[in-house]
């Protein structure tokens, strides 16, 4: 064996073990992020009860979000759309496999079920699983490239917030508690919840300044940060919550005002998810 061959083989070994480590992290991420949903009764029911067009649309709209996440922090530091697409496909695969294994072991799915129920239950869990696979990669990954990743454009900061809002929103939107809480709340409590969401969000935005998250200069006024990150972030949380609630049929038959109450309730965790994502990712 020549030296050249030796080095090439060593490189291949490195690449292979790197890939396996990446896959392991992705599986870990998929489980960590998806387990609450895999163990929620309403998610199983949605698998066979939810509107098929909305499920298909959720699958399609998750693609650009996952592409963005892969671009931002995927299995590898990629900037090429083909590689991002490949990573997203792997993430879907990991979400699919982890959903099938966990749902099968938990007796949520079984061979006696009709294909429509089986596929519905698996698909609805695959999407958060894929999201978790990509997020997990960035969380369990090495820290050394974090500094370089911190240089973010405003657009990608908003994208990160959307991903955070989608993650926490997906986790709680299917539960009956979201509508139940909204039914029990008064208008004034809803108003207070909006205030509380904005306040807590701004706390996270403020905290991310210390992490060196965004280029906050000494002379940046607090209201400038508040308007550009907190207010826009809350609007993103509202939009994502609205989409997720509609997807899960939680707004069906509700009047405008009742829908707004439910929207404000779900936007609370979504807003925290959005703000925390900038700090964590």
């Amino acid at each position: 064996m020549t030296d050249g061959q030796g080095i090439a083989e060593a490189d291949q070994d490195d690449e292979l073990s790197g890939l396996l480590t990446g896959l392991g992290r992705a599986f870990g991420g998929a489980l960590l992020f998806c387990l609450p949903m895999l163990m929620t009764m309403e998610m199983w029911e949605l698998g066979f009860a939810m509107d098929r067009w909305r499920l298909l649309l959720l699958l399609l709209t998750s693609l650009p979000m996952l592409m963005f996440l892969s671009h931002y922090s995927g299995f590898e530091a990629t900037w090429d759309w083909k590689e991002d697409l490949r990573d997203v496909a792997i993430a879907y695969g990991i979400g699919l496999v982890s959903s099938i294994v966990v749902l099968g072991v938990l007796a949520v799915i079984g061979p006696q079920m009709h294909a429509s129920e089986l596929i519905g239950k698996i698909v609805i869990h695959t999407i958060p699983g894929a999201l978790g696979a990509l997020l997990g990669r960035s969380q369990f990954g090495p820290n050394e490239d974090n500094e370089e990743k911190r240089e973010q454009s405003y657009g990608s900061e908003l994208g990160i917030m959307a991903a955070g809002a989608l993650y926490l929103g997906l986790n709680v939107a299917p539960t009956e508690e979201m509508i139940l809480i909204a039914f029990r709340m008064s208008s004034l409590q809803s108003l207070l919840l909006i205030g509380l969401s904005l306040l807590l969000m701004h706390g996270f935005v403020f905290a991310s300044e210390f992490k060196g998250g965004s280029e906050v200069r000494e002379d940046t006024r607090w209201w400038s940060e508040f308007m550009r990150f907190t207010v826009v972030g809350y609007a993103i949380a509202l939009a994502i919550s609205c989409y997720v609630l509609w997807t899960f049929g939680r707004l069906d038959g509700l009047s405008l005002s009742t829908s707004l109450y439910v929207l404000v309730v779900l936007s609370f965790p979504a807003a925290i998810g959005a703000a925390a994502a900038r700090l964590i990712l």
Partner: protein
Amino acid sequence: MTASASDGPSSRSARIATAIEWTLAAVSGVIILGLAGYLLFEAVTKTGSHPVLILRIDGIEAMPDGAVVDLSVLNTGHATAAEIEIEGTLGTGPDAITSTATLDYAPAESTSPVALVFNRPVSANELALRVLGYRDP
């Protein structure tokens, strides 16, 4: 984050980016203020504390061994009702057949679907509907 127009040589793209940031901020601010304003309006104007439930027949579908009556439960009140018991009675006297259904929630000012099942054909004019009861969510 994009550089603001105030620092250093302000390029055209930086100015555009700043304009986009502030446009987004303004639009978001208007949405949130609108939402808060609507809730404040509701807090002041909608003070009714009881659900007002109305039952409406949406359709009667013949089945192999009877019929299914599709109903809408309209709650025109300002409060939500939970666990609404609905009863439908076909005919009168000893031959009357009753059927009941329970609805999880009838949200305020909203419409919720429910169905009653009978073991014989149903015509709308012989069907009597009523709400037996509900509780606060």
